[in-house]
């Protein structure tokens, strides 16, 4: 890895290198097999040792070949240097240990003194196999790979942060500038963007294309294809060129499957490079036009990457509902369907079964953990049903339009912590019901067309919940009669 640095690595080296992750399992398996045979052998010590000698010889030889291939692979330079160093030397030690073991088994098994060292060395080789293998896994998959799905109580014991924090949706945190006059162009604007969109592949642990982007020095140094940034010349800078390529292009950055830069971010990056790619200047000291200004305003107002609102419920991971429970509901011709294939949240729709009432709907209890949306418009349900679902933990949307519910029923809904949308169209709910609605904590939108509420009641509700969107429906008259407007025929 030192010898060929900075030069272009011939394809055949990398070709062999890519066999390393495959071939390496062969000596691992052989060695373990040899150990098992040794451990369970009924023979005397000398015969025991001798019988596994061929296995140990093959282990050693194949391990050496694996080491050579591993070295080829390491030339690609995409790995964390510290881990690689350890992995490399442990691997070489392991190969040599295997050969030593083979030699001992073959020639020293009769020697009462030397044969005593066989067992300790074999144990050492076992430790080496485990350790080297683990490091190899870390190199390939990343050090968090093994523990990323570790269940919660064990995480705590091992001192690993809870999963949401380690694996959360990174890269979409909005970048915000508090003081435009004082903000630094690189530290406050460019680096956060690079961190979100580039660092995951170009960092200390992983260097795709031999490129690191986690410090100004590395950015200026460039990668396997040379410098990526020419200050003052965005159209010649690979950094900009690759971002601007068509997303389907092989060389486009970020690659397929990663989050792309937004249009604003691209414009800012181009501007930064064009104005000299400064790493320590203030934004205010760099000339900008109206376009940049309007983008910067978005950053100061925090509206640059307004996160799309999504109910916190959908961020949970919950077990799927039992098939039997769903089947029970389908017997009533209720449509039970996952809101998306990704997760187990369910929607229950009575579109094909307007005849259902409280009795049939009791079967919903079986999926109460999963149900997030209930479309029960026009069914025979009553307040009793609302009492039943008041204990469901994840209801987000509830359509009970054109049903016989009353104020009493609405009073149960205040315990639905996540209820955001409520459809009460065509119900007999009047102003007294609005007091109960005001108690629903997360409500965002309510439909009240053809109910008994008055404008005054709506006004009061809006005062209590200023952010609630209230729809009262069409007033029954168009503001203007367009057919009265004459159109003149041209001559």
């Amino acid at each position, binding site marked *: 890895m030192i010898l060929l640095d900075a030069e272009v690595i011939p394809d055949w080296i990398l070709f062999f290198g890519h066999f390393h992750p495959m071939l390496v399992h062969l000596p691992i398996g052989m060695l373990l097999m040899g150990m098992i045979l040794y451990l369970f052998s009924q023979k005397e010590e000398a015969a025991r040792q001798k019988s596994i000698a061929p296995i140990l010889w093959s282990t050693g030889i194949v391990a050496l070949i694996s080491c050579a291939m591993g070295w080829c692979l390491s030339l690609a330079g995409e790995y964390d240097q510290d881990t690689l160093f350890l992995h490399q030397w442990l691997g070489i030690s392991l190969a040599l240990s295997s050969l030593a073991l083979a030699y001992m088994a073959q020639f020293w098994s009769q020697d009462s003194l030397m044969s005593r060292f066989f067992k300790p060395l074999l144990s050492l080789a076992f430790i080496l196999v485990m350790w080297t293998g683990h490091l190899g896994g870390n190199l390939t998959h990343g050090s968090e790979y093994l523990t990323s799905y570790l269940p919660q109580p064990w995480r705590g014991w091992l001192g690993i942060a809870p999963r949401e924090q380690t694996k959360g949706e990174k890269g979409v945190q909005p970048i915000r500038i508090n003081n435009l006059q004082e903000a630094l162009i690189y530290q406050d604007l460019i680096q956060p963007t690079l961190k979100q969109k580039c660092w995951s592949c170009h960092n200390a642990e992983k260097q795709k294309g031999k490129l690191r982007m986690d410090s100004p020095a590395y950015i200026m140094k460039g990668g396997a294809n040379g410098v990526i940034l020419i200050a003052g010349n965005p159209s010649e800078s690979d950094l900009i060129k690759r971002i601007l390529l068509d997303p389907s292009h092989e060389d486009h950055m970020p690659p397929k499957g990663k989050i792309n830069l937004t249009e604003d971010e691209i414009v800012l990056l181009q501007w930064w490079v064009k104005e000299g790619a400064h790493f320590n200047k203030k934004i205010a000291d760099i000339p900008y036009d109206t376009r940049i200004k309007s983008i910067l305003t978005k950053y100061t107002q925090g509206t640059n990457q307004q996160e799309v609102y*999504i109910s916190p419920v959908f961020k949970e991971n919950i077990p799927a509902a039992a098939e039997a429970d769903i089947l029970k509901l389908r017997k009533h011709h209720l449509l039970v369907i996952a809101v*998306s294939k990704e997760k187990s949240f369910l929607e229950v729709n009575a579109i*094909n079964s307007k005849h259902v009432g409280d009795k049939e709907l009791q079967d919903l209890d079986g999926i109460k953990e999963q149900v997030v949306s209930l479309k029960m418009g026009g069914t025979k349900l009553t307040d009793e049903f609302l009492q039943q679902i008041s204990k469901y933990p994840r209801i987000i949307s509830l359509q009970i339009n054109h049903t016989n519910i009353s104020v009493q029923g609405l009073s149960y809904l205040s315990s639905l912590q996540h209820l955001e949308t409520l459809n009460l169209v065509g119900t007999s709910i009047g102003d007294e019901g609005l007091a109960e609605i005001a108690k629903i904590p997360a409500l965002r939108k309510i439909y009240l067309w053809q109910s008994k509420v008055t404008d005054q009641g709506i006004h009061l509700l809006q005062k209590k919940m200023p952010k609630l969107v209230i729809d009262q429906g*069409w007033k*029954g008259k168009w503001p203007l009669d367009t057919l009265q407007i004459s159109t003149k025929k041209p001559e």
Partner: protein
Amino acid sequence: MDKIIQEAIQREAQLATRRHFLSSLGTGLGSLALGSFLTNCSSDAGTSFASPLAAKSSPKLGKAKSVIFLHMAGAPSQLELFDYKPSLAKFDGKECPPELLAGKKFAFIRGVPNLLGPKAHFEQRGQAGHWISDYLPHLASQADRVSFLKGMHTDQFNHAPAQLLMHTGSARLGRPSMGSWVSYGLGSENQNLPGFVVLASGGKNPDAGKSAWGSGFLPSIYQGVQCRSEGEPILFIQNPSGVNSDIRKASIETINQINQETYQEFGDPETVARIAQYEMAYKMQSSVPEVMDIKKEPAYIHEMYGTEPGKESFANNCLLARKLVEQGVRFVQLFDWGWDTHGTGLDGSVDYGLHQKCRQIDKASTALLLDLEQRGLLDETLVVWGGEFGRTPMQENREGKKLAYFGRDHHTEAFTMWLAGGGIKPGVSYGETDDLGYSTISGKTSVYDLQATILQCLGFNHEEFTYPFQGRNFRLTDVFGKVIDPILA
């Protein structure tokens, strides 16, 4: 004798293709379809949702559950409706600069045409400040509900191929339409109605014909069902005289049983589609007349849409679209013919004919938005409005001669569409054209981008939503398309 046996073997090999074999391995469609056979009458409801039209979940969380696509067939003039160009008015009657014409081809314009200033009066509407002309006063009152794509472009300047491109992702015949893709992906929530319904008004079907709602290589159960708003909604669906519903049911059961045996013999998935179609047709005998009957709608609804029951009109179709979506239909495709304003006649003039067309659709399309909203359906219904391309900033000079009326030729480089409802951020205007409205200078979006965005709203990644056919995976957007994020909520 040997020859006969050999031929028999070869015949069977021809019938059971590798694809049939592989697809039957994966899904076992036949048994699924039989399970759903006339479930209304059977007691085993447990398997009733496994037919090809059973409601399915989207791969990702989608805001929209259904789509209403209002297609103004013939292509409305963006320069009279949404894309306000004061500079174009300034140069009205002047010759078009030659650099705009160099290397360009038009459907009818020849030589050097004159520029034609906007013939409508524009104002900024709502808080969003959208420019909407007085041709569409009702829509203007709801400007904050809709979002505009002003930088749309296409590569087809004739109606039929451009319409095909818009609806099937290819200017040539044979690809499944957007509605077919959607009903293939999401099925139909209503077990008695198809997933994809087509309604046409304006006296003519669109130039692209039935291929604009064809199922292409998808199973034919997913093709659009065209309903007429005048007379019987679907032809040949009612029982002939002397055949009562029991006889009809018994005969369909028998036919399907035979089809089932045929499927087991040959394994052709089209047989499954045919079984499902018979089944659906039987169910539609009662469900369709009910949903297609707008007479029972209250008077205020007729007032709202401007509908007249029994007539073929865009307004009636808008009301029907709302009813269908309310009943769980996934994709409703409306075509309204008569927007091809070349200026060859009074009806085809941008200063009169276009205004008349706008009057026919303005109230109804606005009412559709309001009616969906008050029922709580707009959150889950994506409404799309537009034509297959735009119209030129130049006055048409057909074959080099001056026409009697003001008209505009077909234009591919810039046109406007609007979207509203499920998944769309309201009040956005994305894309900008140059001062003459000739081409897009920022926020350029293609027909594929629009399709990708529609699929995105429904919870599909347009790149992953594929169907294997003739050895490759096909998608609606072919190898193109980029989701238009700025207009997404």
